[in-house]
């Protein structure tokens, strides 16, 4: 497996499948659906080795692939995977498979283009998780927007155009500033080591004066904060979720939101540790406000999808809080919450999609007393709701508890205020659940609802298994993510001290003070997994 360019295959297989689907005859709905499902299934099975072949302990990135892309710029086609990106990639392939199976009946018109775009989106996401070259990362980061934009724009609800354009512009506005930061980082690297390169590992060793780090960190953080989304920059999420088709919002919630936090973890924090130390409290408090604000606003939403969207803002606030706590519990908690949120919110959107398909309305008021009419659906809804609320024994609890523990260790007040999020999440979820599932059957149309078909149960079965597996025995997940997270933590702290000292002795000119550095960096190709 190692000599086979596995990661590239993982990234480009869905793209090829997408093209194949796109050229199938438009009206052949059945074969299109089957082909898309088989492609997604093959991709998922093909990505399973990420689970056992990525040796948690081994330092650096595995399955590295390096090809020269634009030598004059020093940009390389450089892919690699470690504990963190491996798990997120698995989440991606799993969610795409679930979304595609879930979307069989929900897409009537133009299913060919729909499935092609979903597969293309998967390729974009996997690319973003695997690449270790900043330019390649930026290319995948932006390229990924196009399929999502079209998915929302073409198959969305009434205000789909507004939501799609808003989604695109919001993310684009953030990431162009990141591009400027990447370019200036590239220029500093060229100045410092003489060799132009976009290689992440080279940047990890690039000494940056803390004063210079700040604006670059803010540029990166701004781009990722929009994607997370963090508190003031989140207004694109409810619109995008409400208008996106079910499969679209499942993937949007389960994976796209993780791009932001993954970006923090992989790029923003290790590259600019001193600036991080300065900004961490502010970002943490923004995250906490996000938690409480998201929960409060979710409480009064009349539309189910908007409620779940705001709950995502709240959950992602936990993830960022975990990162800002800067200790192993906080990191592990935020990574777990990323995975949990992917599973439980993805399931929630599928659930909303199921009844939307049948009733074509998402208003909570239009439902009531579903338990009597569709019990199986209601039981699944109960379990997923409990996992989203973070009941111990389900996956939600592990993530939230670790984040709160990490935050507590950093500062008690963080944990106290964030923990109120736990109460509020119970409030809005239970209130929604009660109005939708419990109570007498108020609307006549609800009586005619048909319970979950076999396909739909097939979709929810793995999600329920995951909810309980990650809740009861999360250790396999934790073992895989911890080495990678500890390395990031370690690197961030080491660089912070190194830069602080470098700044202190900033009298000597930059180049001469670190003579050994250029040699170490000059030959990035052979070193492969060098730290």
């Amino acid at each position, binding site marked *: 497996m190692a000599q086979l360019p596995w990661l590239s295959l993982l990234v480009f297989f869905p793209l090829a499948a997408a093209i194949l689907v796109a050229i199938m005859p438009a009206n052949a709905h059945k074969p299109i659906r089957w082909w898309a499902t088989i492609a997604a299934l093959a991709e998922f099975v093909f990505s399973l080795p990420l689970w056992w072949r990525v040796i948690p302990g081994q330092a650096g990135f595995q399955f590295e692939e390096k090809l020269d892309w634009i030598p004059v710029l020093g940009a390389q086609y450089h892919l690699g995977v470690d504990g963190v990106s491996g798990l997120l990639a698995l989440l991606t392939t799993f969610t795409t498979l679930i979304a595609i199976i879930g979307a069989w009946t929900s897409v009537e018109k133009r299913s060919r283009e729909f499935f092609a775009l979903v597969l293309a989106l998967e390729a974009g996401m996997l690319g973003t998780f695997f690449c270790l070259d900043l330019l390649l990362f930026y290319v995948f980061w932006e390229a990924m927007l196009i399929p999502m934009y079209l998915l929302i724009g073409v198959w969305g609800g009434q205000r789909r155009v507004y939501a799609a354009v808003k989604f695109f512009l919001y993310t684009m506005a953030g990431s162009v500033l990141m591009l400027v930061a990447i370019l200036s980082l590239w220029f500093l690297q060229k100045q410092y080591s003489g060799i132009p390169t976009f290689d992440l590992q080279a940047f990890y060793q690039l000494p940056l004066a803390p004063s210079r780090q700040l604006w670059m960190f803010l540029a990166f953080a701004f781009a990722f904060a929009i994607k997370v989304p963090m508190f003031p920059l989140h207004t694109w999420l409810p619109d995008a979720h409400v208008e996106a088709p079910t499969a679209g919002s499942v993937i949007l919630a389960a994976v796209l939101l993780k791009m932001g936090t993954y970006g923090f973890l992989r790029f923003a924090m290790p590259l600019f540790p001193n600036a991080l130390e300065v900004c961490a409290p502010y970002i943490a408090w923004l995250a906490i406000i996000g938690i409480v604000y998201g929960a409060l606003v979710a409480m009064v939403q009349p539309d189910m999808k908007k409620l779940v969207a705001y709950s995502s803002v709240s959950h992602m606030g936990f993830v960022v809080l975990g990162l800002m706590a800067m200790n192993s519990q906080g990191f592990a908690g935020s990574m777990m919450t990323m995975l949990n949120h992917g599973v439980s919110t993805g399931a929630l959107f599928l659930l909303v999609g199921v009844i939307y398909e049948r009733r074509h309305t998402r208003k909570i008021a239009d439902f009531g007393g579903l338990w009597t009419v569709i019990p199986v659906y209601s039981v699944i809804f109960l379990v997923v709701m409990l996992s989203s609320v973070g009941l111990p024994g389900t996956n939600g609890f592990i993530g939230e508890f670790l984040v709160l523990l990490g935050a*507590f260790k950093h500062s008690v007040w963080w944990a106290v205020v964030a923990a109120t999020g736990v109460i509020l999440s119970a409030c809005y979820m239970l209130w929604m659940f009660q109005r939708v599932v419990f109570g007498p059957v108020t609307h006549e149309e609800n009586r005619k609802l048909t319970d979950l078909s076999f396909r739909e149960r097939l979709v929810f079965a793995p999600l329920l298994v995951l909810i309980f597996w990650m809740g009861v*025995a999360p250790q396999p997940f934790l073992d895989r993510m911890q080495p990678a997270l500890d390395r990031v933590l370690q690197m961030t702290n080491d660089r912070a001290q190194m830069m602080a000292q470098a700044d202190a002795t900033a009298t000597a000119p930059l180049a001469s003070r670190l003579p050994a550095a250029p040699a170490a960096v000059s030959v990035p190709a052979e070193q492969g997994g060098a730290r």
Partner: protein
Amino acid sequence: MNLPMLWIIPALPLAAVALNMLFGDRLGKKGTAFLACGAVGLAFAFAVRAVLTLAGRSEEERQIVETAWTWFRVGDFSVDVSFLLDPLSAIMVLVVTGVGFLIHVYSTGYMAEDPSFRRFFLYLNLFMFAMLTLVLADNYLLMFVGWEGVGLCSYLLIGFWYEKQSATDAGKKAFIVNRIGDFGFLLGVMFLIAWTGSVNFERVFASAPHLFTAGGSIITIATLLMFLGATGKSAQIPLYVWLPDAMEGPTPVSALIHAATMVTAGVYMVVRSHVLFEMAPVTLEVIAIVGAATALMAATIGLVQNDIKRVLAYSTVSQLGYMFFACGVGAFGAGIFHVMTHAFFKALLFLGAGSVIYGMHHEQDMRKMGGLATKMPVTHATMLIATIAIAGIPPFAGFWSKDEILAKAFATGHYGIFAAGLLGAVMTAFYMFRLYVLTFQGKARFDESGGHAHAHAHAADAHGAHAHDAHGHAAAHDDHGHDHGHGGPVKESPWNMTVPLSVLAVLSVIGGWVGIGKPFIEGESWMGRWLEPVLGSGPHVHHLAVSTEFGLMGLSVAIAAFGIFMAFRAYLQQPSIATAMHERFGGVHRALYNKYWVDEFYDAIAVNPIYQASMRLWRFWDEKVVDGTVNGVGYFLEGVSALLRLFQTGYVGTYALFIALGVLALFLHFLRS
């Protein structure tokens, strides 16, 4: 000991839940009932076996620890799923499984005609699993799993008849209030983790003395937070509001969850972490005061309630108040002893009330009962025993535990608490016998011909409390969809309801003898010696002279008798006394009837403001401010775009002008520099 010892106990009900879920519909009612009760019975058997092996060991190593697997390990912090049996948890596990089993048997009768019979036992078994995990947990986190698990099950069971809006509201209220408590408990546990690095009881209690400064602010805050969790779970001020509403659920649920087991979880947690609480005297004071206040407050409200289950609910809150102020004064042993005895007679009272309601075709208002003694002899007898027990008349169980608490309160100098306890005892005796008299004695205030007992106003009860309070949960008879409809005369409940009643009645009598202590036999009571390895002798060994012991006992018996006498006079011989009292204290009566308007108060200061705040946050902040700015930028740009397009007039002259101006501007720029 090839058979697994501890983890099998919670595993059995879980297995029953799984089997019920998978093959439930094929088993039919009989099968489900057998599966559910069998599982709990087996669990009880295993529990007894485990306790016996425990008892067999010598004093020091009276502890069985079984680790199943490591739940999760992150950095230096790790939690494993492990179970601990020591004298304290032995008592609890016996009570939970024993009383649980009886209630399961009882439920097979009570819920016989309910269409979703299977779902009821599924939830009940799930609850047993969660409660047993809580009780047998070896660390705070596993206890928290059980803690929230029972919260979930109470939510499901209260809202069991989900068509009823009030039921689901009550369930939601219970879960959220519990969640607020759990918030406190979680933060308290986090303090422990942050300082001791572990959640395991062993390690925490071992390292606590030298990590925390006794009486220091950290330990006080931690213990206060944990106590907040306990108030949530065991319905103390301020988080008790959910328990009275929880009566919406089926009566066996009230018996099991809201009398015997779940509500005692808070007390168990406090007693389990007595090492920590003893290091924080301030917290102990708070617990004592809160306990006493709750006891008194709940008792006063109980005086005027007309719904049989609500009276019992407030009585539970009141008795829990006793247990907490027992812990508050340092008498953790007495607290646990009262937990045990209370479980017996309170479960019996609830089940009795259940069989009364069952007999009366779901009539819960005492004003429409009366004279049932002859019609339901067994229920009458067992209820009488339980009422006497709770009133605290020797030799019944209630007397011994309540007296020991009052004695300990007196001995440790908490005279205020002691006085409150006495006053509470009087009221308890009064309202319990008021219930007894209104239900079983006097004339039948319902027509024999069956159908629903229409409310012909009985003179004694015509007093001014007709104003149904806002929540309408004291409605004459709740019209949940499942009432039995079968008319017919009031008759005794079937065997599977009366047998558990009688067993509990026996326990209510002999249950207390376990705790007979000093004045009668020398040295600690059996219960005291049994708990000694866990609770340790500790600072709270105060000796009262034998004479004062007897004096106290006499005093408590006297006030109990006085309460009973007053109840009989007011409600049996001269109803006029009751009506007279109501006129004079009309205001007070209304305050009590409406539970001091606490619910309305909470709504006013918490629920509604949060709702308004989030509505404003969403409408104003999210849509106007944040989205406003975002769209604002868009509109601004479009405005500028329209402006710029005006310049594009289409006339060649204008364009030439701009070229000339451009050239001019360049000149000026360079001439200046």
